[in-house]
């Protein structure tokens, strides 16, 4: 039973966190919304007149906008497909009895701890470089012409790099979920004559569904804002071939100094992320009840 005094103390303890987060959320976001209605370019001095939705019109008709939106979705869906399917298969494999399971786990997890700029540069130079990269050497050894990954298929290459970083995350979470599966249930199914395939589809997969949903939603939040990997590999190019929404907003606001236009783009990114966030919040909220 909480007393009156401890309730008051509780409120006092919670308030710094709440106030700080509230300011962090409301002040910059409010400013972004305000800027998005101004004609505001850091290169053009003078006052910044209110122009209504002009920036949004410019943003949506910018020839880079639709490609960037398309690239964002391709990047998210591509990485999700690789990491979720790969993660389920890997989790099933790692759940089997084997020698040195601990070391295998440690090796598989490692890429997740590599900072994005490092993994992007290592892949770009040491693997995907068409002259000295390891892939080029493999191609030449097998008698093919080396493939210039980042010029010929920039978005695909970035998907590969990002998927390498996130596969461990998906695997780890799905493995954790798999290990919480009651093995007696599986044995009972086996005794009733269920084969390996039907055990997978009728028992394991439904059990994994929840964890897989969490993996997909959380990764989506992070993948919508992939930035460093693009910055150090392709700078969004060639042309706009690997520009996603985050990179587009960055280049409009910090490279072209168009604060108004960049802010409008930022708001579009926020709305897009919120659509995903609603589903994620609902899942986590349900979990809080129990």
């Amino acid at each position, binding site marked *: 039973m909480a007393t009156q005094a401890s309730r008051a103390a509780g409120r006092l303890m919670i308030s710094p966190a709440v106030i700080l987060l509230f300011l962090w*959320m409301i002040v910059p*976001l409010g400013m972004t919304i305000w800027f998005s209605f101004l004609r505001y370019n850091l290169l053009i001095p003078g006052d910044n007149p209110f122009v209504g939705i002009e920036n949004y019109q410019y943003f949506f008709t910018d020839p880079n906008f639709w490609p960037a939106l398309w690239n964002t979705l391709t990047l998210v869906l591509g990485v999700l497909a690789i990491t979720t399917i790969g993660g389920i298969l890997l989790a099933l494999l790692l759940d089997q009895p084997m020698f040195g399971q601990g070391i295998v786990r440690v090796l598989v997890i490692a890429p997740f701890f590599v900072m994005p700029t490092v993994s992007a540069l290592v892949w*770009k130079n040491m*693997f995907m470089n068409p002259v000295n990269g390891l892939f080029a050497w493999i191609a030449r050894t097998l008698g093919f012409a080396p493939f210039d990954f980042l010029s010929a298929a920039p978005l695909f290459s970035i998907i590969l790099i990002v998927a390498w970083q996130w596969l461990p995350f998906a695997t780890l979470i799905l493995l954790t979920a798999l290990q919480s599966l009651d093995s007696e249930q599986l044995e009972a199914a086996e005794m009733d004559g269920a084969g390996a395939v039907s055990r997978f589809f009728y028992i394991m997969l439904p059990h994994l569904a*929840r964890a897989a949903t969490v993996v997909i939603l*959380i990764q989506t939040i992070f993948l919508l804002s992939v*930035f*460093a990997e693009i*910055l150090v590999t392709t700078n969004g190019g060639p042309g706009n071939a690997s520009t996603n929404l985050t990179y587009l907003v960055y280049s409009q606001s910090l490279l072209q100094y168009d*604060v108004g236009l960049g802010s409008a783009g930022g708001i579009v990114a926020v709305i897009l992320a919120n659509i995903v966030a609603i589903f994620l919040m609902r899942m986590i909220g349900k979990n809080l009840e129990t």
Partner: protein
Amino acid sequence: MARTVTTQRKVIVTAIAWTIAIAIFFPILWTFLTSFKTEADAIATPPKFLFFDWTTENYTTVQGRSNYFLHFWNSVIISVGSTVAALIIAIPAAWSMAFVPGKRTKDILMWMLSTKMMPAVGVLVPIYLLFRDTGLLDTRIGLVIVLTLMNLPIVVWMLYTYFKEIPGEILEAARMDGANLTREIIYVLTPMAVPGIASTLLLNIILAWNEAFWTLNLTASKSAPLTQFIASYSSPEGLFYAKLSAASMMAIAPIIVLGWFSQKQLVRGLTFGAVK
């Protein structure tokens, strides 16, 4: 009863699993090996895997040319500083939500989580301008502030899920025995909460260490952490594979070691307790 597994099957599984694991780990292994090669050996055809003249000169060159330790130190200050600041703010909040839950506790938790869903790029412009006008651009204190606020929701959530598992009866028993709130926190709660706080600390240092949106956009040189330091290798220095590898290894080695210790907490922290 556990099912018996034939040795033959176990050997096959082991072989497959090790092959895949090494393939996934290979880029890191390759970077590690390359960091000990001369530049000539690093681009040799066919590639040299183990038989080359091992040298540590790349490490000394990288340090000498770009002052690695300054950036390493920046990374340490920024990641540890922001994590400790977040813990100081979050521990009381999580404590009160776990032990004195009110009607709105759940709403507050969900609202905190929702702030984490906001993409950083949505507030890039105002934060950049605010930092420019207040002289916080390219300062460590500026990054500590941003990363503290960015990770605060995760810290509160993780601590909350840990504190929730501490049985409330123990606290009540202590209260019955005449312990006041301060004593309750110091002698009863803290010892039980230390493991949870430690794992929260660890996971957040990792997240802050690898953060690569704000660190790239808000720093230039003197306060640049390792993420930015490595990004400066993007071209043309990146073509010097041995030096790039040495710089990369120095940037990732400390955190990979920490990361291996925190695998379990990672799942819990990054799924906000939805998967345990």
